[in-house]
């Protein structure tokens, strides 16, 4: 065990910090869930890519730096410390990208990864359906092979598709063998959102932005080369992707550490320091963020040693999502009457609070995560009542 950084890690941190200081926009960009904000965030992603910072943990041949998970964590710490913009292509770079590297063909890697790293193509996810939320295996959207087996013909409806309003492509799972048991017979397919037969209908979120959408598929045709992984093995592929989402790759600790630091600043500036209950709550939030960081460093060392994370990822997901809500609740407590204002000095905290409330729901609700922990880590009897 050595919890200090090596000179090489320090040098990497310094390089990232210098680049970010020189390049991060001085003013925060408008939300990427608006048309203008989306375009500006795509420009920012391109800039990151030009500096080879958009996908640091990817191999160099696809535009990354081949950084190990530890360096990736260091980059993330610097990224959020610098107050850099949110990652508009996170569905691609952090979820689909690693999945393609794991199960994709060489052709698919060459075809999709470079344009993903540069955000020339921004990806949306299309998993949930109106009747397949927590019970994702209840998917009804279908994929049927064309007569000459060269194309999938897709029909059905996806919902809660993040970034779909302005994204270029989406990835999702479709029922390709209607006779198979629910978890079988699904195939993971990549679809251009400008394909004929696709209708995207934005859904306004709690915060008023349109970060997600419904996608309707009406005889949409895509080549079979867009199949990721084996036909009818889409569930396994999707679970690998979901593992990335719940695990380390989407929710690095740096984001929460930055929020915790801002909360501490807020407490110093605005809170009544004689309020011991509030002081205890604020330090508890700081400790949660620090604890999450330590837990991630331990997980990442385990992965560097060749270990994998399975159901443990569900512990992470519950922890960060509940911590994020807690930190924002406390900020609004400190804001007092200003917490009611959407356009005041605490705007970022109010927006952040609304966004934090999505955390315990998306990527598998926290109730589902608790079931997963109980069933797979604690080995309690399966089936739920």
């Amino acid at each position, binding site marked *: 065990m050595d919890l200090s950084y090596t000179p090489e890690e320090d040098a990497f941190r310094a390089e990232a910090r210098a680049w970010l200081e020189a390049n991060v926009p001085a003013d925060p960009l408008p939300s990427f869930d608006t048309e203008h904000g989306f375009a500006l965030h795509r420009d920012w992603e391109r800039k990151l890519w030009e500096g080879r910072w958009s996908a640091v943990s990817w191999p160099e041949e696809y535009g990354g730096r081949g950084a190990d998970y530890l360096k990736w964590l260091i980059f993330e710490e610097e990224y959020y410390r610098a107050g850099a913009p949110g990652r508009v292509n996170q569905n691609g770079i952090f979820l689909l990208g690693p999945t393609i590297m794991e199960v994709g063909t060489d052709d698919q890697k060459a075809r999709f990864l470079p344009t993903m790293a540069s955000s020339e193509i921004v990806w949306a996810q299309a998993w949930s359906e109106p009747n397949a939320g927590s019970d994702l295996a209840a998917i009804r959207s279908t994929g049927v092979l064309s007569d000459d087996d060269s194309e999938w013909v897709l029909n059905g409806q996806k919902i809660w598709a993040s970034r779909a309003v302005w994204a270029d492509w989406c990835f999702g799972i479709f029922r390709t063998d209607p006779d198979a048991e629910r978890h079988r017979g699904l195939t993971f397919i990549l679809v251009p959102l400008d394909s004929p037969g696709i209708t995207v209908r934005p859904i306004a979120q709690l915060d008023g932005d349109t970060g997600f959408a419904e996608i309707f598929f009406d005889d949409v045709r895509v080549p079979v080369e867009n199949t990721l992984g084996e036909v009818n093995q889409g569930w396994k592929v999707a679970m690998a992707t979901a593992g990335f989402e719940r695990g380390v790759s989407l929710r690095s600790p740096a984001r929460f550490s930055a929020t915790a630091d801002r909360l501490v600043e807020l407490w110093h500036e605005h809170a009544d320091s004689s309020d011991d209950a509030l002081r205890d709550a604020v330090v508890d939030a700081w400790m949660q963020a620090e604890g999450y960081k330590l837990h991630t460093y331990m997980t990442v060392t385990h992965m560097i040693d060749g270990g994998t994370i399975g159901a443990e990822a569900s512990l992470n997901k519950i922890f960060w999502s509940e911590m994020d809500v807690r930190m924002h609740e406390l900020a609004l407590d400190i804001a007092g009457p200003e917490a009611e204002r959407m356009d005041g000095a605490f705007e970022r905290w109010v927006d952040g609070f609304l966004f934090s409330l999505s955390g315990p729901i998306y990527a598998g609700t926290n109730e589902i995560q*608790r079931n997963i922990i*109980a069933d797979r880590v604690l080995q*309690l009897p399966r089936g739920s*009542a």
Partner: protein
Amino acid sequence: MRFAFTDDQKLFAEGLRDLLAKECTAAQVRAAWDEGIGHDFALWNHLAEMGVFGMLVPERAGGLGGDEVDLVLLLEELGRAAVPGPVLETAAVVAPVLGDAATVGTAALDGSPYVPHAHVASLALVPGGFVRTDAATVTAVDGIDGGRRLFIVDGAVEPFSYDEELAFDRGAMAAAAYLVGLSERMIDVAAEYARQREQYGRPIGVNQAVKHLLADALLKVEFAKPAVYRAAWSVAFDEPTRSRDVSMAKAFASDAAYRSSRSAMQVHGAIGYTWEADLQLWMKKAWALQRAWGDANFHRRRVADAVL
């Protein structure tokens, strides 16, 4: 940066776990309680032979010359088995202060008027020095944990200069590690019970309300662990954040142990409220140690003093 234990450290902990599975069963812990001694001399000798008490003692003084990172997993194993007697006090606090692994020692550095284990320890480390128990009046009070007997010790303090803050931090870190082990055991025992116990014709563990009780406890334990390991590292390398890191660990571990005890007892139902169920051996130890060496509130405030 490398946040992992070495193979040797893991093997040592596994060896200790195997030993305790044989030599410190729930029946043996219960026997130590029932006999009123709250200690197991035979087990103590096994632990001494293995080197547990000498981990923080230099090799030239007959110890293993290790550090707190080497010790922390062992403390977790001691907790997992609810080993009775002054094990953490001797191994983590008294042995490194005296530079001697042979003395059975205890400590009262957390402001409590009671000295645990004073009837079996030959000396008690106190602020400003130590008290020899054979030259003091030692009066028993009735403590909740039968494996951690409490005493009022009335005797002269022999002045002795040592780093009291470091000794306290070692004790709090050790208690935190012990609490993590206790928590894991309580969750294991409750999960096993939930697999076996049937109601409405199926195991109670099939119910989400039961699953979530245990998942919530596990969540707290799994996030306490890295904080405890980091605390051990910060003590071993005398980091400037040592006290902050120890306090974060103890606050997390105290909360995790209490949550685990409540979840485990609730899953057991009425059986969990009986003297007969072994669960009490771990729960009562957890309730004692969650407040010993500073409770969660004390430690949270120590973190606040460092951070806010």
